[in-house]
């Protein structure tokens, strides 16, 4: 049985253009999946469908059961989601925010058991941010806030973790720490992670496999080294690049080119532009 199974997933905002159009893929338990694609390609919409926020057409199954059919509480114990930013209406202690991760497990009054307390403390420890526990959330730096937010999802202790560009606003140091801790905590325990990325190289380094989305459709899927090449980057992002191998991981790495893409593709012989120069500009 697949951990996540998506079949013919469709969704459109306000009856307009389809934001998701016939997406099909499946994810095995313990896989780390990176989702990439240009702005507006449907990454976030896909994440929302997977986290049972949208009413979609088609089928999205988690552990063999349609996500719509789970009770919200049951689903929250199974799937944890973190997005780009966490902006609570009121300022509160970092600890109170991480404690929110235990809401799916507590009784009506939301009283934390000693086990819950232990898990909350452990979440701070796992991310190496014990020093932030009693700080006020809005007094923290952007990077620290994102770590606290991640600790909340850690405390939720889900089987499947979904990240929606959670590292988008972070510097390289925070990205490294956060992605490393997530890999350590989830991969070693054979838990599944799906993460969308703005930065293609972050996606490549982090993920076992990639899903490439363009215009709401699944454009490509597979191992990073098989999927990523100049042609794909150009077709999906309309950007020219050079591809190198990461000296340490042997994974591909995408370097942005700033030369005129037309002359580049002409010299590479990928597109014959002499006949129709407008083709690329479109």
């Amino acid at each position: 049985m697949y951990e996540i199974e998506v079949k013919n997933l469709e969704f459109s905002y306000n009856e307009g253009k389809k934001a998701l159009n016939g997406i099909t893929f499946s994810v095995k338990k313990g896989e780390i999946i990176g989702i990439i694609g240009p702005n507006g390609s449907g990454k976030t919409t896909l994440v929302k469908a997977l986290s049972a926020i949208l009413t979609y057409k088609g089928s999205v199954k988690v552990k063999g059961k349609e996500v719509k059919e789970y009770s919200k509480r049951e689903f929250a114990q199974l799937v944890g989601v973190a997005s780009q930013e966490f902006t609570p209406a009121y300022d509160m202690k970092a600890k109170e925010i991480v404690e929110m991760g235990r809401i799916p497990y507590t009784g009506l009054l939301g009283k934390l058991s000693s086990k819950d307390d232990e898990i909350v403390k452990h979440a701070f420890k796992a991310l190496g941010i014990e020093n932030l526990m009693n700080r006020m959330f809005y007094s923290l730096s952007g990077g620290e806030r994102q770590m606290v937010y991640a600790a909340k999802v850690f405390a939720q202790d889900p089987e499947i973790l979904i990240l929606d560009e959670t590292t988008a606003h972070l510097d390289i140091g925070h990205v490294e720490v956060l992605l490393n801790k997530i890999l350590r905590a989830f991969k070693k325990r054979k838990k599944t992670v799906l993460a969308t990325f703005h930065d293609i190289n972050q996606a490549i380094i982090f993920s076992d496999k990639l899903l490439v989305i363009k215009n709401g459709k699944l454009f490509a899927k597979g191992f990073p080294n098989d999927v990523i090449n100049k042609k794909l980057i150009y077709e999906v992002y309309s950007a020219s690049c050079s591809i190198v191998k990461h000296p340490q991981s042997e994974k591909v790495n995408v370097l942005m080119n700033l030369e005129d893409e037309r002359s580049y593709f002409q010299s590479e012989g990928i597109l014959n532009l002499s006949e129709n120069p407008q083709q690329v500009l479109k």
Partner: protein
Amino acid sequence: MIALPILTAFVLLNLAFGSVYIPISDIIKSLIGMKVSNVQNVIILQLRLPRILLGLGVGAALASTGNAFQAMMKNPLADPYILGVSSGAAFGAILINVLAQMYNPNLIFYTWIFAFIFGILAAAITYLVARKNGKLPVTELILSGVMVNLLFSAGVTFLIVYGWRNVQMTSFWLLGSLSGSGWNSVILVGVVSIGVSLFFTLIGKYLNAMTAGEEEAIHVGVRVELLKVTVFVVGTFATAVAVSASGIIGFVGLIMPHIARRLFGTDHRISMPASAVLGGAFLVACDSIARTAFTPAEMPIGTITALVGSPIFIYILRRRRKVV
């Protein structure tokens, strides 16, 4: 628990002061049924006590509803009147008074029922306008609330100008007053305010989750749409009861939740009962100023809540800013 003795002392003090001073020993005697003079008995049991209890109830209902609405809408400017209950109720009350003048003076006894019905009606219009695809988007809700408020306020102005010029009654509804307190309304408001504060305290963990936004709340397992409808219906009911008993008393529902959160933290399981107690106490304190400072005239309580409340609020806001 700590609040209880302080609140009792506070109530006793408020019973003592007014146009006539009554010694505390006499108040206690009267309350436990021992003999005191008849005049004092009437002042305490028929005038001051119901008025104080009504103030506690109305303040508690408004402040806890305001606190819940602020969390649900993720908007610190939300108050219990944001859905139009207040202007709806004022319109209903003034309408029935106009009708009473024109057709049957007895209709005036149904004033509070009309206020209640029109308050609920206004909020219902707000819900229906805002509702979209079985969901209740908060931005639409706030906007349609603004619209409904404006609509009924216009209706109120219309009624005052063309039909009815009773300034005192108008100020009762538009600025609020606890002077209309009989034991019946005290009991009703008391039950409702205790109920609503308890209810919002019980669902505190869900309100906590909502402060992070609707999607974040869903991610931790909250049934957001159900919660929204429940909170708005319960809050609207409580507000309508409060307004029909005492008119539109502003400020309590807006600022007391802020003060409660600043003092006791943002956890609704604590800030909710704190809002209720502070809201009640604040209203009673404002009322004692309203009825004593300008004797024999009585200032509308809404004026006092704003006059007293704004500086307190500004002070807390400023003090806070320095810390951060």
